[in-house]
């Protein structure tokens, strides 16, 4: 079972866990991304996330399907925020349930690592003296 979402609304960790919970699962692995207050010593004011929504959903779905093919996991959830986020807010939640922990850990790690490489979502870091699109320049 796959649950994916792009939303401008606040992500709720508990409801994501509830979604992937299943009686046959022995564990749930959850990755929660949070907005940190500084990058390379520079104070971050807020982050702005922009998505190419139809393509981002397609790429997120590909990741979830790949995970289900590669590991014996039961349910896979990938939720991502768009819009303006403040320090400490949650831009991304990945949750995976499986019978055994190895599959859940591996699948969760794979999902967040691949999301960062393939999904067309962009993050702008806003500092006190300007803003930068993350990873845009070498």
């Amino acid at each position, binding site marked *: 079972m796959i649950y994916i979402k792009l939303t401008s609304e606040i992500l709720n960790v508990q409801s994501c866990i509830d979604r992937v919970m299943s009686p046959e699962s022995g564990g749930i692995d959850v990755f929660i*991304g949070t907005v940190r207050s500084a990058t390379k010593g520079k104070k971050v004011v807020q982050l702005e*996330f*922009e*998505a*190419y929504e*139809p*393509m*981002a959903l*397609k790429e997120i779905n590909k990741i979830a399907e790949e995970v289900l093919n590669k590991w014996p996991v039961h349910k896979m959830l990938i939720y*991502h925020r768009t819009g303006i986020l403040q320090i400490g807010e949650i*831009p*991304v939640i990945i949750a995976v349930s499986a019978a055994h922990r190895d599959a859940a850990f591996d699948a969760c790690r794979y999902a*967040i690592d691949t*999301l*960062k*490489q*393939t*999904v*067309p*979502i*962009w*993050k*702008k870091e806003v500092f006190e003296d300007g803003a930068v*699109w*993350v*990873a*845009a*320049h*070498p």
Partner: protein
Amino acid sequence: MIIDILAFGIAKEIFGGSSITIELSGSSIGYLKEMLEDKYPRLKQLASYMIAVNNEYANNDQEIKQGDEIAVIPPVSGG
């Protein structure tokens, strides 16, 4: 062929808007990239960028057809 190109992230700033319309004389992705880089040299300063056709990443030798949804995808940074 006249096509619209969607832009996201820093590409939006380089183009000065969320889409541009250009007249294309060739039809491959590689040719489109050359045209865009001539017109918007700042694209060459990016770490990398991709073109998506109909919501899928495209190779340089892929052909563009009238009506395709074309987008410039600068380096992604979600998560």
